[in-house]
């Protein structure tokens, strides 16, 4: 079981995720149309690029936009969750030992206590986001099965990872469950709402180009996000 999970399934899910991302990125930008979208993307590549970069980085900064500042609690939960689920999978020492073994390279690592803290922060934030979804009428009205699916799929590797980390009960069971759930996330990324992992950048870039070119950019006004 462990051999399958760390062998073919690992390579397969990672491959599907990466190829899927590349294909969808290509499809996205290939599908932009200057006339249908009413943005002269190609005429003003520099303005468009500047607008895109601005639109992305402003939203990546906690409380960097009006949107984040008007909803400070949501912003805290949002960043608490996302910082955890980006940093821990990529920079955990254990993951990088595994990467080195399987792919022959590794990334920058963070210490285990930091990773523990980030994981707890992510779980706490996600639980808050779940609660928010249950309690707030403006969120509940839109919530569908897919939203719950994505939420629990994201929660699974975090919880199983911690159970394995603290060796509660059967370590190898939790480790396998952790690897499997992580691989399921990788597989789901290109095909579900989790595609926002990369399409966030595409969508933000598009709106950034719109403002950077058409909606004020050519007038010399930088959109105050």
């Amino acid at each position, binding site marked *: 079981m462990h051999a399958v999970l760390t062998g073919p399934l690992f390579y397969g899910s990672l491959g599907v995720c990466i190829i899927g991302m590349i294909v969808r990125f290509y499809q996205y930008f290939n599908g932009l149309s*200057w006339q249908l979208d009413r943005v002269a993307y190609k005429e003003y590549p520099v303005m468009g690029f500047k607008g895109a970069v601005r639109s992305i980085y402003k939203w990546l900064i906690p409380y960097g936009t009006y949107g984040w500042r*008007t*909803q400070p609690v949501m912003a805290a939960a949002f960043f608490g969750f996302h910082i955890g689920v980006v940093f821990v999978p990529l920079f955990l020492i254990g993951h990088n030992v595994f990467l080195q073994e399987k792919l022959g390279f590794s990334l920058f690592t963070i210490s285990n206590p930091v990773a523990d803290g980030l994981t707890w922060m992510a779980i706490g934030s996600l639980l808050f986001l779940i609660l928010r979804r249950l309690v707030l009428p*403006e969120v509940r009205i839109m919530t569908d099965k897919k939203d719950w699916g994505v939420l629990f799929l994201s929660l699974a590797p975090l919880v199983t990872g911690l159970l394995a980390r603290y060796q509660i009960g059967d370590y190898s069971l939790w480790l396998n469950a952790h690897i499997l759930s992580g691989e399921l996330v990788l597989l789901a990324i290109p095909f579900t709402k989790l595609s926002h992992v990369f*399409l966030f950048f595409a969508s933000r870039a*598009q709106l950034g180009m719109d403002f950077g*070119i058409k*909606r*004020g950019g050519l007038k010399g*006004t930088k959109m105050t996000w």
Partner: protein
Amino acid sequence: MPEGTLCNKKPVDTAEGITTLLADQSGKKYYEEMKRLEIDSDLLWKTIQNTCKTRIRTWLEICAHCGMCADSCFLYLANDRDPKQVPAYKIQSTLGEIIRKKGKVDNAFMLHAMEVAWAQCTCCNRCGTYCPHGIDTGIMFGYLRGLCYQQGFVPWEMKIGAGMHRVYNAQMDITGEDYIETFEWMVEENEEEYPGLTVPVDVEDADIMYTVNAREAKHYPEDLAEAAILFHIAGENWTVPSKGWELTSLAMFAGDWAACKMQVESVYDAMERLRPKRMIGTECGHAHRATVVEGPYWAGRKSGRPPVESIHYIEWLAEALRTGKLKIDPAKRIKEPVTLQDSCNYVRNHGLRETAREIISYIVEPGYFIDMSPNKEHNFCCGGGGGFNGIGYFRKQRNVGLKVKRDQIIATGAKLVIAPCHNCWDAIRDLEEEFDIGIRWSFLKPLIVKMLIIPDHLKPEEEGEDE
């Protein structure tokens, strides 16, 4: 009944057609017929496949249903935070549903979609600036309006408005002759006070080609006089085209994209015919957006720009005050609490957030200007944008929507609201009528005409001799 005699999928493109529609008071029969209008699902789905590309599809797909757009929508706030007014819900339950069902939707669904598209969104695009994913629901509602229009589910006034553009190249039944006659008459009325005042018609190679909102000619002709006076005092070399003089586009509100193209092309033709250095449009928001911001794309102009540099009236005013072409008598500046309504269409959607404030710095005594909160590109819609003001069928919903602007104005304590946009001006007038909060409202032209220092050589003779 598949197609009604008044309510159907065919655009109105004859004067008789418009007269017939207008004869149906408040669209009573029109809306009755709409309840039996059939949907051409094949056409709907084919259109979506051809025109709904990755931008909108990705928006609909990655929307996290997080509800962060809720508070950004003035209609959500005005309707006591009704979750059915959350922008993401509104678009997912209409456009999203049409796409999920591949166009196979029924009459009741389309009636509902029409109400959401015209009475629950003014296409102000504020939500787009509050979504972490950069999802601009206002753009999607504009797109949805096009689909509804194609299927005949469009508010009565919008169908008529789009038809007017098709027949008259104007939002009202005013011909080029009517327009020029009105302009000339208004100039005559004022030439005693302003000797030498003229309206130069179809002058080639002028510095400025001026375009207007047809209702200025029909209902507010003094606006034309004020424009002429201000250009005259500023010593501008200006002209008005006898064809292609209408800046507005009710066709844009209606989602009648073919009429949008016809309309802007009439203005672009005038630019090409008269070769002015610049085009200046009147104090209107959607008209600027239609002709200057969106129009080039409808007309297939890859540059995304009209044939000649085209600016909003406030840009010209700010420039004329800055360069001293127009001078304000400091004694006549506004000395009462005053605020400014930022029009979504040229502030949020065309970057002109500082321009009107520059004008304010010349015409308001320091200390009397109070900004609304929020303001500039984060300002709320006046409550009547996107055609909402003009739709009798949704008047009740529009009046509820005015509450947010009312409260913003009350919070400033202003007695006067400057609204350099026809839609905003109307909405603020209507909110005063509806809620009686004791305010006045004004365009910039009449305010500035009253506080100008007239150069001696432009004064009436008697007055000149006296001094």
